[in-house]
């Protein structure tokens, strides 16, 4: 019965999450504070109310790429026989646990697809990410409604895009129909309440079909790779498109596909830890070199890099995939409402003019 389609009534959801969290670390989107619109993914705890209607303010990437994670700890010890020498001992970080991220959207899952390509598809494999990813299941919601900032269909995804997901959740009004999309997900299916009946399955199929028919966003970016390169030196363009950028890190922190990190040693006395933490290409220190030289001295070069990375360098490096999942979070959260779609769309004008 493991692979049957299951049904979770709305009022049974927290019971299901409770059962799942007995065997896995479960992450859910939740509005943790009253009177706030903020929704973010948090480790599930009893009493927590999942928020599956609103898109989360922050993407779920923290579950797989924590904002701060330990690479290893180290302890210096004075050599008792030789005062001029110090010995160093290393300790491994805590091993990852089996995890289920419940209630991501197809755009969020697409973010992880890019992470996989960068961190775990080789030739260089990030052991920490890879180990965590192998143990993680994505339970993805069919996305029922977009807003003015969404554009997932423009970058290869869509409201019913199953790619990258392990479990497929379809809201049908009074509950959720859940199916396993691969063998990895089978072992949790039995924990998901009752098998779905024919009516529920039919309702889910209808919801899925309607979602699949929606095309969200009308950006065309198949030429963005070359268009960007032609715009690269056009400082006037970047002034027009990103002159208002504040150089804060919001867009990169809420983004499901931004994965850049910093590595620092944080030392206290003789003990310390080497940690990896989210970095942002919007920050001055991101490319600051030890000499004091900075190849991206102003926010314009930094903003240009964000566009270039997502719409030119990543497609160049990884078989044409776009480094953006179209979730719209950077647009929604930007303090000065910079619209990444407009920036990418307008790259093209000069290309046409030249041709």
């Amino acid at each position, binding site marked *: 019965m493991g692979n049957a389609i299951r049904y979770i009534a709305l009022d049974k959801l927290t019971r299901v999450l409770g059962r799942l969290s007995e065997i896995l670390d479960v992450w859910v989107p939740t509005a943790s504070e009253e009177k706030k619109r903020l929704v973010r993914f948090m480790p599930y705890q009893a009493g927590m109310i999942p928020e599956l209607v609103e898109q989360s303010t922050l993407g779920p990437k923290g579950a797989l790429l924590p904002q701060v994670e330990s690479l290893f700890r180290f302890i210096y010890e004075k050599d008792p026989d030789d005062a001029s020498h110090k010995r160093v001992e290393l300790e491994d970080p805590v091993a990852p646990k089996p995890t289920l991220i419940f209630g991501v959207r197809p755009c969020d899952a697409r973010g992880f697809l890019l992470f996989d390509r960068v961190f775990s598809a080789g030739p260089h494999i990030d052991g920490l990410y890879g180990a965590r990813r192998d143990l993680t299941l994505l339970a993805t919601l069919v996305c029922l409604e977009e807003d*003015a900032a969404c554009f997932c269909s423009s970058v290869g995804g869509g409201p019913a895009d199953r790619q990258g997901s392990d479990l497929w959740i379809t809201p049908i009004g009074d509950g959720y129909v859940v199916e396993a999309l691969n063998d990895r997900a089978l072992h949790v299916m039995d924990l998901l309440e009752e098998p779905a009946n024919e009516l529920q399955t039919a309702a889910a199929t209808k919801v899925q079909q309607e979602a699949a028919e929606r095309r969200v966003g009308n950006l065309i970016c198949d030429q963005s790779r070359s268009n960007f390169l032609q715009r690269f030196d056009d400082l006037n363009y970047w002034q027009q498109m990103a002159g208002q950028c504040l150089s804060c890190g919001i867009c990169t922190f809420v983004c499901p596909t931004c994965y850049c990190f910093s590595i620092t040693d944080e030392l206290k006395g003789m003990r310390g830890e080497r940690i990896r933490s989210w970095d942002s290409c919007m920050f001055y220190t991101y490319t600051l070199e030890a000499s004091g030289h900075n190849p991206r001295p102003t926010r314009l070069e930094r903003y240009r890099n964000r566009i270039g990375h997502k719409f030119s360098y990543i497609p160049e490096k990884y078989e044409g995939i776009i480094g953006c999942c179209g979730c719209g979070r950077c647009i929604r959260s930007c303090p000065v409402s910079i619209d990444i779609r407009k920036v990418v769309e307008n790259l093209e004008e000069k290309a046409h003019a030249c041709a």
Partner: protein
Amino acid sequence: MNTSILSELKKQAQQAWPELDLLIGWETGYDTLHTTPVFIKDSSEIQRLVWNPFCAQNLAGYLVKSPIVPRGEGSKKIGICVKGCDSRSVVALIQEKLVARDMLFIFGIPCRGVIDLRKLIPNQTGAKILSVRLTDDQVEVEHSKGLQHLAFADVLMRKCKRCRYPDPVIHDVLLGESVLPRIESHELYQDVAAIERLSLQERLAFWQTELDRCLRCYACRNACPLCVCQDRCIAETRDPKWLTQYMNLPEKFMFHFIHALHLAGRCTECGECERVCPMEIPVSLIKEELNKITKELLDFEAGLDLEGVPPLLTFSPAETGI
């Protein structure tokens, strides 16, 4: 009313254009609820300007922080559109000699308040805004779950509800009629007074809960018109190293203390730090507390008087206030 202010703004901008190198204002963003700053370099672009209660951004910071706004060089002026609160930031920048008054052409707009978009639809309903209609004191929101009528005063930013200076305190032209403050001066610090009434434990718990959400994205700092250290901010430098890269509470507290203390007596309460926070942390409260203390102790309010010297920018051995 907004429409007539806008047409007057465009007319005045056109008239002033021979004096200007650049004009900083607002234009429509990705939808009608969002405005975005615009840098006008040619008089033919003046028609891009908008004015409405969604013009949230304080543009004053661009005078000192933008790579595309010329500073000092050139014979022409920089034009800038300001609301009442924004105008105080401009005054503070002039006081600190970061911009020269005679290099600015200030288009002042008396402001009835800007709308907090988070207050337009109920939380966690999945409702998506389809359209918004504004009348003088009503906001009609059409969203995917229905129609909602709200009082204009209820959907304003917190900073607007406690605004004492809706009229720009400095301007070369003033557009529209004077607006009365929404509160009396003795009511100015009610929000921080409410925090002060909490016990020390409650206060600590409040700030622990709020600041624990901080991502250290530095949007509050970068949106602040008076946070002018920019790339030299000690929150990020590794040498000297005041903060680690850890995301624990002490680091977050420390960052916000750094931000707030450097703004003591300088903060003009434009509320940008609080507006831009993606985690909805009421960070302005920290600066308001420091301003309250500055007012009580030294009788100084930031950004009001061109001749005024912010207390932390002066030193007098004969100081009597402390």
